[in-house]
């Protein structure tokens, strides 16, 4: 990726101090020669808008925000112009100064509208920061300090501001009582700051010839190498993916993590101010020698499987198939704003249209018109894709049909980033903005909220979310990373039950789901970890660590980012910008495929072939999840979980379907569900018995008393338990009920036998012919040992 710059022959007579875009093709620039120029990029015309009075030396310019919450402003377009005489001016598009307000003593160094255009902030040489209403009435003086404030920026929600104070940066909330955050940012005076609302990151450039990236807590994420000259300007691209930085004869394009994509050395003098157009396609810089430099991004690359796509010009792309070196050129009518390549489709948006290409056919794209121009994010799933613009979120099918448009009330959609929204074939998940603990879930096909509109709520702020991509909708899972960098997994469709949010990892920096199987990979502390079957946490929690594949991640250096996980290849971006790849064994994906299609024999054969414990563990969990006991038994035996094998054998011997289902639930630790299942089937004794087995005495007694049966059974077992541990009965309820109840073991045995016989009878009555009564086989460890030592026996299972 690099910048293609151009300098036009028109220029100001003096240095240019500020620039501002009105549309994607029209720019206003102000200069010390008191002139305001309008640059039209469509016809390359430069016109003088207005000649200011000789005593107005402009310093900063900022256009009134154009769209507010997706609605176009009806207000006439105005901009604020600050000047060295301590005034700011509100001027119209024609350059007529509507209002001049005496604001500061000394020069007004910066003036910025907030995102919804309700207030304006100005910073002056006198060290004051003042907030003004839209019409230019003073609301308050927010801060005061002894040194000039060179630059100021609004926080993402317009509720905080960031400003410079000598070498320091200060974040100050607008609420008067709340505390400001202050830290030393540079070794020289900080000259420019910018704060992006999409990624919530802060940029600063200073006289120490460095630029730095910070998060909104003031932690340094990146510090650049020393430049030859002070950094005079920094600017985030609107989508927060890249930023530009200007210095003397220098223009640099950098990734949001700080590393530099490209460096240009144009003949411009110092670049005093940089501005991106609203759609992020154009960049303009105010040059010290009177020029205005224009730049746009080219050579951006997208890769998916064997296809590599390069943005060659603003309106054209080159597609290269690396397997056969076939090259296609795609031409567009308007400049390309966003593109995404994944799941066999390329989606490209321009200012007016959306093009959908299939990788099989580059000649005939599907084209449809876009309502709102600037798409800020494209997400793809296998069956459809999602576009985000300032007005909303839209799910389209690859045939170009609008499938749905999920709506989150009161959310600014244009600041959504890929971490805060996720798409799968049937679900859209969006993290809340005002409350970051909340995740809104929608059906992708209807756009209606899932679970009666009750969003998923986590106990901490959620940083990143990702939906798994395969399998049926009912099994859809969402992985989330919270503020503590813990990784959690939970079910999306939870049928009125309280969601179980299970922790599956800690210190997770970044994660990604596989595109063709529900395998999750992440970088955990210094380990690269793959969850072959994350769902195992809901089936058999103890098994989860055994289904993990991990390897050392030190080769990815500090804070890498997983870009995607396609097939068996994980693409990771290191902090220095280089792409590294890591391959994952193809077996788990094959295992998923087999088990997904219920080909358990194939799955077993695959595991035997691969001879991998992790794979066996995954298979065990998968089989248990599908209640496929035979396969589960073999798999558990293979990983040496003797107790589990025994339990599975026990489940297999259970007389009725209900009890075995209940015990499978119990196997996964879902006691509540198991009990409900048994009670619904009228198997009261069995329900009581599971609580007895779990030493869940209170509940066992409660059930027995409630259903007026087997109270003596519970008491007898309790007694035995107390005896075994030589304890005294202290539980009041047991004391109460044990009075007047005679414990007769023989009677109890008989009763239990009767219950079991009854259950068998019932099961027999329902299924014809009745299953033969199987003598309970005691588990023999020697038989298991034989399985390990003599692989030929495998087939007999």
């Amino acid at each position, binding site marked *: 990726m690099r910048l293609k710059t151009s300098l036009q022959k028109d220029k100001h007579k003096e240095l240019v101090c500020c620039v501002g875009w009105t549309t994607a093709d029209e720019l206003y620039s102000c200069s010390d020669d008191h002139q305001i120029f309008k640059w039209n990029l469509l016809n390359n015309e430069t016109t003088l808008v207005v000649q200011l009075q000789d005593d107005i030396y402009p310093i900063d310019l900022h256009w009134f925000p154009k769209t507010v919450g997706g609605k176009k402003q009806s207000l006439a377009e105005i901009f604020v112009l600050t000047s060295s005489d301590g005034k700011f001016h509100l001027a119209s598009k024609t350059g007529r100064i509507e209002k001049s307000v005496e604001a500061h003593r000394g020069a007004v160094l910066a003036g910025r509208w907030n995102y919804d255009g309700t207030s304006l902030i100005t910073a002056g040489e006198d060290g004051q920061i003042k907030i003004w209403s839209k019409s230019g009435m003073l609301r308050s003086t927010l801060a005061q300090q002894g040194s000039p404030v060179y630059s100021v920026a609004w926080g993402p929600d317009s509720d905080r501001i960031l400003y410079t104070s000598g070498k320091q940066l200060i974040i100050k909330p607008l609420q008067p009582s709340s505390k400001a955050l202050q830290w030393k940012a540079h070794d020289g005076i900080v000259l420019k700051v910018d704060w992006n609302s999409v990624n919530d990151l802060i940029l600063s450039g200073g006289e120490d010839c460095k630029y730095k990236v910070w998060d909104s807590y003031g932690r340094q994420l990146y510090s650049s190498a020393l430049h030859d000259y002070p950094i005079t300007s920094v600017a985030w691209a609107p989508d927060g993916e890249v930023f530009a930085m200007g210095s003397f004869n220098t223009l640099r394009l950098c990734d949001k993590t700080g590393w*530099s994509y490209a460096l240009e050395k144009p003949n411009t003098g110092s670049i005093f101010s940089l501005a991106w157009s609203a759609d992020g396609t154009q960049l303009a810089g105010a040059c010290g020698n009177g020029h205005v430099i224009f730049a746009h991004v080219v050579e951006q690359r997208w890769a998916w499987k064997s296809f590599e796509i390069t943005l060659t010009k603003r309106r054209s792309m080159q597609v290269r198939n690396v397997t056969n070196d076939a090259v296609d050129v795609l031409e567009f009518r308007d400049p390309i704003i966003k593109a995404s390549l994944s799941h066999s489709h390329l989606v490209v948006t321009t200012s007016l249209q959306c093009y959908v290409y299939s990788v099989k056919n580059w000649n005939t794209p599907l084209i449809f018109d876009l309502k709102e121009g600037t798409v800020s994010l494209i997400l793809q799933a296998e069956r459809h894709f999602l576009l985000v613009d300032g007005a909303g979120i839209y799910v389209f099918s690859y045939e170009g049909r609008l499938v749905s448009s999920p709506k989150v009330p009161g959310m600014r959609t244009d600041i959504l980033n890929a971490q805060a929204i996720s798409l799968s074939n049937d679900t859209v998940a969006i993290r809340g903005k005002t409350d970051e603990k909340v995740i809104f879930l929608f059906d992708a096909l209807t756009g209606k909220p899932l679970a009666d509109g009750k969003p998923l709520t986590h106990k901490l702020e959620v940083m990143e979310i990702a939906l798994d991509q395969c399998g049926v909708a009912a099994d859809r899972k969402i992985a989330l990373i919270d503020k503590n960098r813990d990784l959690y997994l939970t079910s999306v469709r939870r049928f009125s039950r309280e969601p179980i949010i299970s922790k599956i990892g800690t210190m997770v920096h970044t994660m990604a789901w596989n595109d063709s199987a529900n395998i999750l990979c992440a970088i955990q502390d210094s380990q690269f970890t793959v969850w072959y079957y994350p769902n195992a946490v809901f089936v058999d929690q103890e098994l989860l660590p055994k289904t993990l594949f991990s390897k050392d991640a030190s080769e990815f250096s500090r804070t890498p980012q997983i870009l995607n996980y396609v097939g068996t290849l994980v693409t990771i971006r290191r902090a*220095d910008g*280089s*792409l590294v*790849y*890591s*391959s994952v064994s193809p077996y788990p994906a094959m295992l998923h495929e087999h088990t997904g299609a219920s080909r358990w024999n194939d799955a077993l054969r695959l595991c035997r072939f691969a001879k991998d414990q992790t794979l066996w563990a995954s298979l065990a969990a998968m089989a248990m999840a599908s209640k496929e006991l035979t396969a589960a038994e073999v798999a558990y035996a293979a990983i040496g979980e003797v107790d589990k094998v025994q339990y599975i054998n026990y489940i297999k011997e259970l007389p009725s379907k209900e009890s075995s289902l209940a015990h499978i639930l119990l196997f996964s630790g879902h006691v509540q569900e198991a009990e409900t299942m048994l009670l619904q089937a009228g198997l009261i004794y069995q329900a009581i018995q599971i609580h007895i087995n779990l030493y869940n005495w209170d509940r066992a007694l409660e059930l027995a008393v409630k259903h007026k049966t087997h109270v003596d059974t519970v008491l007898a077992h309790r007694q035995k338990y107390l005896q075994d541990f030589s304890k005294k009965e202290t539980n009041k309820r047991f004391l109460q009920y044990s009075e007047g109840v005679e414990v007769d073991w023989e009677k109890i045995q008989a009763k239990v036998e009767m219950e079991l016989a009854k259950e068998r009878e019932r099961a027999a009555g329902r299924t014809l012919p009745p299953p033969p009564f199987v003598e309970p086989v005691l588990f023999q460890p020697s038989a298991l040992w034989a399985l390990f030592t003599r692989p030929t026996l495998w087939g007999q299972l």
Partner: protein
Amino acid sequence: MDRDPLAEAGLHFDELNKLRVLDPEVRQKTTELREECKDFVDKIVQFQKIVGGLIEHVDQLAKEAETEKMKAIGARNLLKSVAKQREAQQQQLQALIAEKKMQLERYRIEYEALSKVEAEQNEFIDQFILQK
């Protein structure tokens, strides 16, 4: 000698016997003087002309010397600034080279990672074939 009464009266005859008021001798001398004066004036004029030309030439030379001098100074300054310019250019090129080097390093790491993946995949294939 006897006095010529005419001469007494201030009258003289010249060779052409024309009556003259002035003594022919004097007259001749006067004429001679006039001629000489005329000569002298002519010479002076000529001298002035020559000197003027000379001055003009010298002036011109001075002017030329002056411009040459300015040129030389300019050239010298230019030379100095070229050195500076080169330095700046060099600095710019160095920055660009550093940038390219960084990009190269990134590509190298990417290539290494890919080679590793290739090796892993080959190993996997070998293993797969062996096991079959």
